[in-house]
Each structure stands twice: as structure tokens, then as C-alpha cells.
């Protein structure tokens, strides 16, 4: 019998944490959905779900919106990705930088701005109506949700697809040209199928994100969808209403189904065909005419993609803005209001997200180390469990917490556990753990084992090796993991909405939502939104800078073999 060593204890600790804050809450949700009042197993709640017209409608709406948004996002992303990879022009850089911008703002913030720009009496429709007497129903009902989500999430497809396209060996295309294929047929038969893995992965991600999103439908008043229904059931009918749990289960099932499907489709199709020393697809110079067309088109897309940001910015400075293409006047008053009324929100965001990101990096590094550097039995389970959090919508996790820890008091006080901000922070940490774990794994994989062996052969103990060799070399990846966790947690709304019990606990994301509820609050809400965007953008830039600096510093240029 082996004595329990440090790694084993650490593994058990992590497992315990994940059990209490991930497995247990989700299990509770499933149990609640499948059991009746006396604790017997039953499918009755699901029968009820499919008998209620509102539930069925919500179900179909959610599916329809998620599918349509994925397709719409693909329509935006595919040509952009193809342009960047195929042609040699400066617009490629523009696409890459601006294409990621939508992700740094919570989608629901953009929803408000888009309503002002593309809504029934928004800028665009006012102008169109004046000039041509027509209006575009872009923001009507579910269309609005689809439009907002597609604009927000298309970068997932863009980024994945671009990577896939870049990994195609140029010879693949040349072989087809050599055998007589070209143009559209070449794209359809060779290039697109080879880039399929990235495309499918991106599509699945968009589908899951849209299916789970709570903030956007709520802000746009589209409550006849699954996520808003779950929220309304739990907050308005109460914790004992089984419908909330049934919806939660359905959401998890669909998330897992979409991911399973994408893995299934991609099975055995790792098409990274570019080999060492090979050339990527040949890039072509655009002719002058083509250049103008390409830039025009990119400009149009960018205008569309950046309109939420522009809208929020205008809104934050607008004294009055209604029934007019542009605000009637400009003021700084909203920013003053924000700093006066809610400095707490800023510090709450820093506190929760900072702690959550710190926990993520700690857990991520530990799990990465256990998996890659120890031979612990069942160590891969930690990875699988932590990654499973990807399939759990924030809303569902929050519902699980509320149900699991209902009535539990903080030891030594009479404060309810569910009323503390601790759960908000933990929810952030658990939800972002998969991303942080990936960064840490990647970072550790890049540290060659021989570097640690060299330290060991010089007499360093395991712990000393970790501290003096591994951690310094991993620092870039860990930092990237921290920043990604931090900024994505800062824009998380669905778990926040469920878990915030009083306004003094609210972080910025929730604050923006609260402000946006009333017409008079839109200005300060937008101002808070702008602050969030600036913070997130700065964070992204800082992490990028730090990581590339770290890579430069720790890279040894080996002589070519």
C-alpha cells in the first residue's frame, strides 16, 4: 500500500472542491427534476413540461434562435475568415483585431444599443423610413435576439475557422489545381471540407452559448425562451417549482448534445495537414477592384459588428436619445452618476473576479501538473470533471447552488450561505475553470520534461523544481489563464442574476442590467458598460502583451538542425 503523497492529497482536495461546487449542485438539479414531492423518481414533471404550450413554445423558440444565430454568425464569419487567410492585404489585421471586439462586452449591453440603432424607432429605421419609406424588422421579437447573438458570438467561428484554414497545407490546394479544379469547386470540394473541424467547433460553441444566454432575451423582452423561463420560474414561482429544474436539465442535455455532435462529426478528422516545413495556402494579392470590394464589405460588416459598442458609447454621453438617429445632446452626467451611486459595483467586480481567476489558475496549474507530471490513478477524471463545467449554463449552476445550499447557515452566524457573495465568486471560478485549465495545460506542455529532469539531477526536490523551474516557465500561460478568467467572469450575467441577493453585492454586470431596466437608467447603465468594455479591453491587451513578452524572454533559439 502506497502512502498518500502530496500529489494524491492535492488531487483529493481538488476532487472535493469540484464535488461540492459542481457535481453536487448539478446532481441536485437532476434529482429535483426527476423526483416528486415525496422523493419518488418520476417523469411527471417532463410530461407537464411538454403539455404546457408556453414551455413548448419556449423550447422551440430557444432551438430556433440558437440554430438561426449559429447560421447567421457563420454567414458573417466564413467570408471574413476566408479573406484573411487567402489574400494578402492589410484588412486581414483589421479583421483579426476588430473581429474579437464583440466578445469583450456582455451581449445584453449591446442589445440595448442595437435597439436604439436598429429598433423600430432606431436610427437606421428612422433614416430608412424618411428616405425610402421602409423599415427593417431586425429587432422585432426573436429576430432581435438572433441578430444580437449572431453579432456577438460570430468571432468564435471566425477564430476557429481561421486557425483551421491556416493549418491547411498549400499542396492540398495545388494538387487540386493540378488535377483541374479551381474557384468555387476548389473551395467546396477541398478547402472547406479541410477547414470543417474549426467550423464545426465554432458553430457548436455559438449554439451552446446562445442556447444558454439569459441576459439578451430578458433585456429584449423575449421571455418565451427556455433560459428566461427557468429564471422567472425560480425567482417568481419559487425554489420548489419543478419546471425550473426541468428546463435546467433540458439546457444541460442540449449543451452536451451539441458538443457530442461536434466531437462525433469530427471524429477521425484531424485535418491539420500542414507539416513542419510545409507552406500554408498561397496568399494572393488583391487587384485594385477586388481590394475596393473587399474593404467595402469588411467596412460594412465592421460597422454592423461595432454598432453595439458605438451605440453604448453614444448612449453613455447622450442627454436625451429617442426617436432620433443621433442623441439630442451630450453630457458627462451619467459617468458622474455611476461613480456616485455605484462605486461598490466596481470594487465588487474586482473582488469576485480577481478571487475567482486566482482560484482558477491555482486549480488549473495543479490539475495540469497532476495530469502531465504524475502517474496518479484516475488523474484524467479531474480534467474531465473540470471540463464538464463547459456544458453547464451559468443559470443552471446558480439554480443548483440555491437548491443545494438552501437553508445552510454560515458556521457561527445566522447568515444564510446563499445570501453571501462567496457563492457568486465560486460560480465564476467553476464556470471559467475549463478555460484556465486549457491555458495552464498548454503552458505546461510547452515546458519540456528534460528541463525539470535537469533540475532534479542537480539535486532539487520535486517541490523546489516546481517553484524554481516549472512555475517561472509557465508564468505566461498562467497569466493568460488569469486574465481570460477575469474578463469573462466580469461580463457573466446569468449566474450573477440568480445569486445576487442585495444590491450592495452586485458586480458591474448586474449593475448594468439593473440600470437598463428603466429608460432613465439607460444613460448610467451605458456609462457602466463603457467602463466595463474599457477594463476588459485593457485586460485583454495587457495579457496579450505580457504573454508575448514572456514568450520572447523564455525562448531559447536553438541552432537549426
Amino acid at each position, binding site marked *: 500500500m502506497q502512502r498518500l503523497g502530496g500529489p494524491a492529497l492535492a488531487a483529493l482536495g481538488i476532487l472535493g472542491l469540484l464535488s461540492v461546487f459542481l457535481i453536487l449542485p448539478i446532481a441536485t438539479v437532476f434529482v429535483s427534476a426527476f423526483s416528486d414531492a415525496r422523493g419518488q423518481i418520476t417523469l411527471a414533471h417532463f410530461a407537464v413540461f411538454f403539455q404546457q404550450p408556453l414551455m413548448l413554445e419556449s423550447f422551440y423558440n430557444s432551438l430556433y434562435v440558437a440554430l438561426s444565430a449559429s447560421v447567421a454568425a457563420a454567414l458573417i464569419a466564413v467570408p471574413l475568415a476566408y479573406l484573411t487567410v487567402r489574400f494578402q492585404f492589410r484588412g486581414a489585421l483589421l479583421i483579426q483585431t476588430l473581429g474579437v471586439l464583440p466578445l469583450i462586452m456582455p451581449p445584453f449591453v449591446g442589445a440595448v444599443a442595437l435597439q436604439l440603432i436598429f429598433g423600430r424607432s432606431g436610427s437606421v429605421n428612422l433614416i430608412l423610413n424618411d428616405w425610402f419609406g421602409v423599415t427593417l424588422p431586425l429587432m422585432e421579437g426573436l429576430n432581435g435576439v438572433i441578430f444580437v447573438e449572431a453579432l456577438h458570438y460570430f468571432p468564435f467561428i471566425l477564430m476557429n475557422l481561421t486557425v483551421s484554414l491556416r493549418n491547411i497545407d498549400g499542396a492540398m490546394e*495545388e*494538387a487540386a*489545381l*493540378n*488535377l483541374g479544379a479551381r474557384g468555387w469547386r476548389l473551395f467546396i470540394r477541398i478547402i472547406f471540407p*479541410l477547414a470543417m473541424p474549426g467550423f464545426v467547433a465554432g458553430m457548436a460553441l455559438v449554439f451552446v452559448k446562445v442556447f444558454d444566454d439569459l441576459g439578451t432575451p430578458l433585456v429584449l423582452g423575449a421571455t418565451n425562451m427556455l433560459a428566461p423561463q427557468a429564471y422567472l420560474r425560480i425567482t417568481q414561482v419559487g425554489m420548489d417549482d419543478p419546471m425550473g429544474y426541468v428546463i435546467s436539465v433540458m439546457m444541460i442535455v442540449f449543451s452536451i448534445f451539441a458538443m457530442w455532435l461536434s466531437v462525433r462529426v469530427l471524429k477521425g*478528422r484531424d485535418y491539420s*495537414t500542414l507539416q513542419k516545413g510545409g507552406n500554408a495556402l498561397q496568399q494572393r494579392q488583391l487587384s485594385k477592384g477586388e481590394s475596393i470590394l473587399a474593404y467595402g464589405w469588411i467596412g460594412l460588416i465592421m460597422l454592423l459588428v461595432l454598432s453595439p459598442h458605438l451605440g453604448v458609447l453614444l448612449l453613455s454621453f447622450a442627454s436625451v436619445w429617442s426617436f432620433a438617429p443621433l442623441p439630442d445632446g451630450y453630457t458627462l452626467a451619467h459617468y458622474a452618476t455611476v461613480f456616485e451611486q455605484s462605486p461598490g459595483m466596481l470594487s465588487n467586480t474586482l473582488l469576485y473576479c480577481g478571487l475567482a481567476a486566482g482560484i482558477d489558475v491555482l486549480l488549473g496549474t495543479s490539475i495540469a501538473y497532476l495530469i502531465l507530471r504524475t502517474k496518479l490513478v484516475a488523474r484524467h477524471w479531474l480534467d474531465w470533471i473540470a471540463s464538464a463545467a463547459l456544458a453547464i449554463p451559468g443559470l443552471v449552476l446558480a439554480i443548483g447552488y440555491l437548491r443545494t445550499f438552501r437553508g445552510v447557515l454560515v458556521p457561527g452566524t445566522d447568515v444564510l450561505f446563499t445570501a453571501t457573495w462567496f457563492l457568486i465568486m465560486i460560480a465564476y471560478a467553476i464556470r471559467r475553470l475549463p478555460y484556465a485549465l486549457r491555458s495552464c495545460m498548454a503552458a505546461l506542455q510547452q515546458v519540456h520534461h528534460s528541463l525539470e529532469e535537469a533540475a532534479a539531477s542537480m539535486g532539487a526536490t520535486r517541490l523546489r523544481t516546481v517553484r524554481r523551474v516549472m512555475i517561472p516557465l509557465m508564468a505566461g500561460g498562467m497569466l493568460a489563464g488569469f486574465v481570460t478568467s477575469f474578463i469573462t467572469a466580469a461580463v457573466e450575467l446569468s449566474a450573477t442574476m440568480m445569486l445576487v441577493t442585495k444590491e450592495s453585492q452586485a458586480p458591474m454586470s448586474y449593475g448594468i442590467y439593473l440600470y437598463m431596466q428603466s429608460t432613465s437608467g439607460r444613460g448610467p447603465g451605458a456609462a457602466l458598460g463603457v467602463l466595463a468594455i474599457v477594463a476588459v479591453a485593457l485586460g485583454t491587451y495587457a495579457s496579450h502583451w505580457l504573454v508575448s513578452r514572456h514568450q520572447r524572454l523564455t525562448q531559447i533559439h536553438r541552432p537549426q538542425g
Partner: protein
Amino acid sequence: MKKVSVECRDVSLSYGTTDVLKNINLTITPGEFFALLGPSGSGKSTLLRLIAGFNSLKTGQLLVDGVDISQVPAWQRDIGMVFQNYALWPHMTVWDNVAFGLVERRVARAALKQRVQDVLELVGLTDYAQRYPGQLSGGQQQRVALARTVIIEPKVLLLDEPLSNLDKNLRTQMRQELLALQRRLGITTIFVTHDQEEAMTTADRMAVLHHGVVQQIGTPVDLFDTPINRFVAEFVGSMNKLNATVQEILADHLVVNFLDGMACTIAKTAVSPSLLNALRVGASVLVCARPHQVSLQHNTQSSQGTSQVSSLVLPGTVVAKEFMGQQTRYFVLSNSQQVMIDQTHQLGETPYAVNAQVMISLPISNIKILDT
């Protein structure tokens, strides 16, 4: 099938300000198996890709069957190419890969089926039609790539380092298969390689490229026996080079002087043609001989070098040796010049030791005079 010729006339190509190909002139006769040999960066692959239509020339003409095709796009050239890494499409089965060119040519279903079957049979892969490229071995992938290309009955077949991704034994086997297939189909074939052994064993004729310039064109024997310059001499096999100066130029002989003052009379036919015209008294030249053409004996009387009518005999010291099985290569220092000698190994023979005093003997008939 009609056999066609390929001709490059004054072909030049540059990437930006770097000239990659300079004034290439080549004529490849119909049905010939032609090798482009050169080190990496010599421009050989660039030339091949230019013929395929993936690079466009700056000046000059590219004629196939007497017609200039330099402005014809790649997909209309009917010039088949087998890529170095095969470039099989991983998302298609062997059958679909092979049928691709016919589908693009809108060949009717029945005819297509027949032709794909025939070609798969030709390369011995009938049983693998429904496999994906990822499920095949290197040699099988190579055959699929070949089948995919020959099925369109290209006018010219281009092979880019076709054997470099295979292990040594398989390479020899595929080399013979490739040659047999080419002979059977009679397609004019151009292949690129950096491996002189591969070029010499397969090619009817070959061209050696260096820095984007064709150095020499000829049969493998031509290039081995009468290399035109130092580069070709060293790239096609190994070559000993001894520094000497021209002492005297006679009607059909010349006398060269080595560092130690020893003189030697050599026939003018041994001088490379390009050097012959520029030959003058006092010029530095290289006296060259292949390592296997030099022989080695013990030097018991520590005698001086002599220049006899038939061979040049020089004293020296063994500084290093490499036992290679069928032969031993000695590195002998003679009057501060190093000479390589390959001596066939006989059963039970003990090689000369390092520091042994030896006499080396170069038969004058095997000597070539090249420009420094």
C-alpha cells in the same frame, strides 16, 4: 498516348529582388525520365512548380510539345504533379482521391469507374479503394498520389522529391516501381531530388542546378565522369581536388606543378571544356580524381613522390579512416593537401592504421583538370 517534349527557353524567375532562376535552358525529349538535381535552395523545386503552373516566370518561354504554355493557368495545363508529401486529401477515400481529376473533367460515370479501377490495379491498390489516406502506409500513400496523377493521362508527369518521405528499403523498391511505371506509360517525366544516387539510378538524363543556374546537363555517366566544374564534381559523388598551377601548355598536353614543385604531364582532353579556352601559364587549377580511382600502398622506404608516365605517386600519412563495409575511406595528408581514398575491403584484411606512412597512386588517365 503521344509523347511530348518540354523545353525551357531563357526562363528566369525572381521573388522580389532575389533571382531564383537565372536563364534556364533545358530540352527534355519525349518520353524521357529527366532528373533535376541540386541542393536545397538551388531552385530545382521552383522550376518544377513553374512547369506545373504554380509559379510564373519573369522572362522566357516554357514550351510543351512546342507550344508556349507559360500563360496557361495550372488547372488547364494537363501536367500532372506528385507532391513531396503526397498532398492526399484526408477527407476523401482512396477512390475519391483518384477519381478527383476525372470528376473535374466531367467524365461519364461508367468510364470513370472503369478508369479508376484500372489505375488502382496498375498501382496494386484495388483492395484499398474505400480506405482513407490516414489508414495507409507511406508506400501506399505514394502509390495513391501517383495513381491520382496518372489517371488524367497528363502530358507530362512531375515528381517533387517523390521518395524522400520513405525509409531506405522502401525507397529502392519504389524507385524501381516508379521507373517501370514510367516506361510502361511512356510519359515524359521530370523529377526533382537532392539525392544524387536517386537521380543517377533512375534518370535517363539529368540537370544539376546551383543558385538558380543550370550547371550541367547530361547522362548520369557524363556527369560523373566529366563534371564541368567543381560544384558538379562534388555534388555528383565525392572528388579529390589537389591545387596545382599550369607550368607549360603543349599541343595536346599540359604540364602542371604541385605545391611541392613536382610536375606532371596531362592530356588536354582531361581539361574541362570551359577551362580549356581560358587556360594560360601560371593559372591555378584543380587536379581531380574520384576516391575509388586512387590506390594506396605501404611506404616502406619513405620514398619521394614521382611522376611516372601512367600514374602520379605521392607519399602521405593516414590522418583518419572510415570503415564502411564494402570499402574503407582513408583521409591521407600529402604535402599539406588532403586526399580521400576508397579501398575495397577484402575478407580478413586489416585496414591501414592512423599515422601509417603510405604511398598514394593516381592513374593519370583518371585525372580531370577543373577550374578552381
